[in-house]
């Protein structure tokens, strides 16, 4: 060792070991004045050592932060859904809810508002979701009906619990880290992501009917169902039906009940014009539809935009009543749960609790904040009655939806939405990528009444059986309202 090294070593040996800082710093008033920001931490550090350093950093004075590490996500019935870092679990279909979970617990107003998602993923939290493992198994099993279908076909399905708004099961695709075809969510930066918006077609008529019932129109009111000149439509582009009225003795008019059951666009367009497109949109919003997309796929947030402004001002036209504007599968399931609960909306949500270190940091808002009912109980009974013809049962309401692929016979979007007293469900089948005519493995067009309804029935039966739920019979119809509202036939 050269002399310099030896001398430096000798000099260095007089350094004070780090842990003995307290006395030295207390003795230097000048230092305290210039380094006040550090002094409290310094004194604590010197006395207690690194444990306090760590807790000081974690903002939890006097104790080590409890269980940092990967966060674990649970089903509400206790099973583990996924642990962050476990790429196998995160790739399973149920893990598509992760984005919704993170979005929900870091939203404004939450105790974890604004927290970076990475901090949640690595913060050692225990997140209990609203998902029920039995319902989830049922929904994934039903999605298995897609096996053997052409590769471009994609299904999505969601179950929401009436009365609580809990999302019981979620299927947005087979890959938990892939595209989410069931919903949209706010990312960390506030952008809306997800591929869950699809044109609902005549499945949207549920809200048109709800708006009509709310306006005092009766199921027995009659409407012109054969093509005719209609407000806002050019003669060369009339609204067309894809079916016929099941009971039209005079050949021209069809009851509101039958028009909905047969999914007739022409009379439902007139009903929308009569009730007001803004009121139809408001009924959808009040049931639970949060976002709607216009013809240019611009998103409209019904939580902040007034329906009257959306109609006309923002490009939502009369066609809203026949389902031209896209909505998400999640929102439709949410709305079905509202009707299943007798018209009372409970905020749809994905998280029950968030805990860490034995402490509950976040809890679902239960009971859900009050919202004005969409319809009164008699009107709900009438609406439900209109939807039981499709199912053939008095404990299951179904509305199918089709949206034609341009002029093709086939559809680009096919839906089946509905409810029992126990579950609100929405199922969609469409194209995974670019929109194409939906053809099944046999080359036949896919209609809402076909594959989507098969999936819906399997979802409902599977989930109810697995969870031991017994749906109640629906209340019989009351036939509320007027048989001769404005715009109805004969006028």
């Amino acid at each position, binding site marked *: 060792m*050269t*002399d*310099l*090294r030896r*001398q*430096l*070593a*000798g*000099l*260095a*040996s*007089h*350094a*004070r*070991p*780090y*842990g003995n*800082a307290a006395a*030295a*710093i207390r003795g*230097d008033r000048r*230092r305290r004045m210039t*380094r006040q920001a*550090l002094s409290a*931490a*310094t004194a604590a*550090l010197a006395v207690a*050592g*690194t*444990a306090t*350093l*760590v807790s000081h*950093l974690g903002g939890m004075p006097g104790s*080590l*932060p409890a269980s*940092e*590490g990967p966060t674990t996500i649970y089903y509400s019935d206790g099973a583990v859904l996924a642990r962050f870092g476990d790429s196998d679990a995160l790739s399973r279909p149920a893990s598509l809810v992760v984005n919704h979970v993170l979005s929900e617990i870091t939203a404004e107003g939450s105790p974890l508002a604004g927290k970076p998602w990475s901090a949640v993923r*690595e913060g*050692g939290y225990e997140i209990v979701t609203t998902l029920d493992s039995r319902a989830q198994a049922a929904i994934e099993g039903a999605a298995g009906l897609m096996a053997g279908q052409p590769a471009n076909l994609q299904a999505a399905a969601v179950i929401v619990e009436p009365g609580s708004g809990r999302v019981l099961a979620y299927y947005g695709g087979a890959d938990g880290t892939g595209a989410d075809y069931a919903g949209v969510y706010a990312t960390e930066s506030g952008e809306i992501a997800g591929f869950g918006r699809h044109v609902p077609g005549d499945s949207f008529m549920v809200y048109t009917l709800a708006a009509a019932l709310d306006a005092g129109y009766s199921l027995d009111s009659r409407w012109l169902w054969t093509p005719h000149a209609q407000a806002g439509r050019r003669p060369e582009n009339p609204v067309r039906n894809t079916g016929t009225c099941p009971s039209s003795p005079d050949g021209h008019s069809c009851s509101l009940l039958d028009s909905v059951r047969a999914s007739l666009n022409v009379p439902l367009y007139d009903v929308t014009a009569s009730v007001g497109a803004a009121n139809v949109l408001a009924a959808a919003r009040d049931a639970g539809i949060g976002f709607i997309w216009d013809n240019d796929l611009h998103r409209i947030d019904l939580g902040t935009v007034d329906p009257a402004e959306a109609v006309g001002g923002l490009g939502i036209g009369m066609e809203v009543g026949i389902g031209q504007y896209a909505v998400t599968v999640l929102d439709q399931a949410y709305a079905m749960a509202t009707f299943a609960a007798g018209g009372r909306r409970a905020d749809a949500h994905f998280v029950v609790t968030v805990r860490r270190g034995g402490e509950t940091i976040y809890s679902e808002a239960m009971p859900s904040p009050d919202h004005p009912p969409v319809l009164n109980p008699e009107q709900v009974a009438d609406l439900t009655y209109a939807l039981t013809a499709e199912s053939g049962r008095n404990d299951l309401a179904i509305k199918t939806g089709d949206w034609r692929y341009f002029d093709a016979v086939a559809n680009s979007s096919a839906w089946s939405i509905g409810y029992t007293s126990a579950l609100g469900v929405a199922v969609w089948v469409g194209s995974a990528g670019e929109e194409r005519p939906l053809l099944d493995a046999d080359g036949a067009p896919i209609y809402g009444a076909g594959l989507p309804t098969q999936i819906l029935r399997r979802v409902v039966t599977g989930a109810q059986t697995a969870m031991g739920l017994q749906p109640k019979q629906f209340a019989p119809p009351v036939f509320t309202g007027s048989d001769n509202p404005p715009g109805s036939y004969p006028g």
Partner: protein
Amino acid sequence: MERYEGFAEFVAARQLALSRIAYLLTGDHHAAQDLMQSALVRLAGHWRRVAAGGDPEAYLRRIMVNERNTWWRRRPPEPMEAVPDRSGRDEAADAVARASLMAALRALPPRQRAVIVLRFYADLSEAETARTMGCSVGTVKSQAHVALARLRQLLPPHDPADQAGAWPTSYLEV
């Protein structure tokens, strides 16, 4: 890995050696403690990543050397405290020598001081020194050369009889 797993153990094991580097860099006990503390806080903030990378000590050295706010400002030399009697050696002479060396170190510009401490106290290679300081190996060589020349100017040889070999007469000897 738990968020601060191994952190306390690392600090317990290495704080003495790192305190000494901090002391040589800053030339002052209080400043050395401040430097260690702020460097440890930063290390803790990145602990998992740094520990996974394998060399938290190098990371801590890098933080301390580059922490301008704490010691790059020139300070007037401070009087050294009395050192407790430890052995039969000539304590007074040692104290004087130490005072001189510390004063000489403090008189060096920060980067020259850093090179001296890293190469001749911490015994880092040229490459390791360059990585710690965030400069090139060539800069390390030239800064060391200049620093040694300056120190030789500031300090008399320790023992007149030990002149040859007491100080490296050229950088190449170290």
